């Protein structure tokens, strides 16, 4: 916590974010005893709250549990008695099929390319543009603000975008057709602007007096001080790219270029597509439902695994954004 907030100087903001992230007030400000009911008896509302929160948390976990379990359950059992909470009979057939074909590898390559290249592009352009807006340059920053804000109010819709990608840029069947339309989120631009404006002005001023140019100030001072917000932006963009399937559905027609989400979407649209995932030799009795669940597991696995470590950044970004519309 303290390590990634080290660059911040505004105590107000730090406290607010720390509270939101840790969800526990600093002890100096709010003695733990004052918060407790005066009488020591257990209040009904507190009990209800624990039960309610646990219930909702369970609702959030159970579907994933069922999918993971289902992916390890033999297809015959799935067909006979439906989904269950424990895999019996245990079966790895779906995963064996998944890992023998090349479709999964292709899907991972596509998704990783879109996510990594996309996030890198998004991060650099967003950070650079946001800094120029945040600099309050006369005659530059304000027009740029309006320029980046108007698309939040009015968009051309689907058809012009489709024509732009296919008729003007000719990006069909390119992963950039998935990356470029999602490259900048105006909302995140303004989250970054809010953060940049809270950077301590004295540091920038002293750098300027020492003769640092705009480029040096941005790369050597602003960016290192902004690691927390860069992490927030990177994570939000990365999740967006990882989950993106709609532009892929529109612009990609070559199955070897499909990202994971689109492969999964094809499995929903037509369960028989599942039979095409494994290599042709194993096609005979493909366990389509089990395969679909296994495919879901491998698609969300990276998010599931990274989430516990990344989660605090999301909360942080959200509270930053929430305070500035």
């Amino acid at each position, binding site marked *: 916590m303290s390590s990634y907030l080290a660059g911040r100087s505004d105590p107000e903001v730090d406290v*607010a974010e720390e509270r*939101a992230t*840790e969800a526990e*007030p600093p002890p100096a*400000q709010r003695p733990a005893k004052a*918060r407790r*009911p005066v009488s020591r008896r257990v*209040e*009904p*509302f*507190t009990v209800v709250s624990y039960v*309610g929160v646990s219930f909702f*948390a369970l609702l*959030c976990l159970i*579907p994933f549990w*069922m999918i993971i379990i*289902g992916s390890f359950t033999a297809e015959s059992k799935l*067909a006979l008695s*439906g*989904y269950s909470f424990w895999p019996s009979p245990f079966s790895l057939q779906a995963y064996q099929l998944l890992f023998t074909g090349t479709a999964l590898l292709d899907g991972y390559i596509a998704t990783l390319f879109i996510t990594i290249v996309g996030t890198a592009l998004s991060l650099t352009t967003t950070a650079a*543009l946001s*800094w*120029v807006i945040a600099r309050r340059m006369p005659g*530059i920053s304000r027009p*740029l*603000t*309006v*320029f980046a804000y108007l698309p939040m*109010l*009015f968009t*051309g*819709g*689907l*058809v*012009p*975008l*489709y*024509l*732009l990608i296919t*008729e003007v840029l000719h990006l069909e069947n390119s992963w950039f057709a998935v990356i470029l339309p999602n*490259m900048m989120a105006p909302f995140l631009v303004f989250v970054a602007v809010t953060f940049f404006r809270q950077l301590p002005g004295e540091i920038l001023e002293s750098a300027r007096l020492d003769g640092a140019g*705009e*480029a040096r100030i*941005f790369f050597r001072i602003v960016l290192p001080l902004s690691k927390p917000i860069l992490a927030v932006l990177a994570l939000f963009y990365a999740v967006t790219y990882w*989950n993106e*399937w*709609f532009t892929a559905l*529109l612009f990609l027609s070559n199955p070897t270029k499909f990202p994971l989400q689109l492969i999964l979407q094809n499995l*929903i649209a037509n369960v028989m597509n599942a039979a095409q995932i494994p290599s042709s030799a194993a096609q005979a009795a493909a366990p389509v*439902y089990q395969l679909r*669940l296994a495919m*879901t597991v491998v*698609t969300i696995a990276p998010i599931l695994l990274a*989430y516990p470590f990344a*989660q605090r950044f999301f*909360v942080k970004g959200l*509270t930053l954004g*929430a*305070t500035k*519309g």
Partner: protein
Amino acid sequence: MQPVGRFGERVRGGTAPASATGSARKAERLRRRARRRAARRGSWVLLLLAAPGVIWFAVFCYLPLVGLVVAFKNFNVSQGIFGSQWDGLQNFQYFLASGDAFTIIRNTLFLNALFLSGSLLTGLVLALMLNEVRLTLFKRAAQSIVFFPYFISPIVISIILQVLLAGVNGQGGAVNDLFGVFDLPQVSWYTTPGPWPWILTIVKMWQLGGYTSVIFLAAITSIPEEMYEAGAIDGASRFRLARSITTPLLGPTLGILVVLGVGRIFFGDFATIYAIVGDNGILFPTTDVIDTYVFRSLLTLGDFGVTAAIGLFQSVVGFVFVTAAVLVQRRLNKESSIL
């Protein structure tokens, strides 16, 4: 020639505008140019930094607006965007005259209203409850877990829903299994359009409840502790504190979220709905929204003119809503507005 540039500041004080001769005016001009150049020397770096973002906005947000002329044309790919015949308002008439217009506009408004109230209510209740939880570890874990569905792609949500509602071979599903335990009749969900607005609302509550609660919790932390102390001294129970202190003080936050949500009310949640419903025509009467309709007409009909007309109609009406919402929001909370 008068000294400019470095000494510009000092010289300017000496020239009185009343006695401005030709040479003085020229000097003034040179001075101004020098100052501008000095400002520009630092700012070309900034312009360079902003350039990729500006180009992106120009190409992907502003250039497509030109493409909207297609809405007024009888578009033909071979003739191109500008070569196609003008069509007047025929595309709009075609859309409004078709029976679909009323259905999808009604669905869009109704579903969005349900989604908004459902997710806000869930978030509010969840935040109030999370605020009662004192065990730090439990609270942190619970908060992480309830926030998680927000990061799940619509496709995966659709798979989850099929596990719950359809089961294998379109039979059963977890919910029907549960119904069986209580001797309730089995429902073939994917062929029954009636309950779908509520099913989608539950999905939205599940997906956004934790996300919204984080926003509310952030607002709760800014409520001064003294209020709770005063309440506790007066003998209020924890529930009373939550109801009579926390909830009213969350009003402004709730107001802003409602206003922003109402501003987006004309834009359907395309990804989630299309991922779940797809091309299942049986469910269209209750689930088809403008965005899914536009998408389907583009892919299946291939009629760019009509599709663009629907999109433009949506953008214009949506713009009115969003702008009104932004104006209201700025009045509600001057400090939180962007511009």
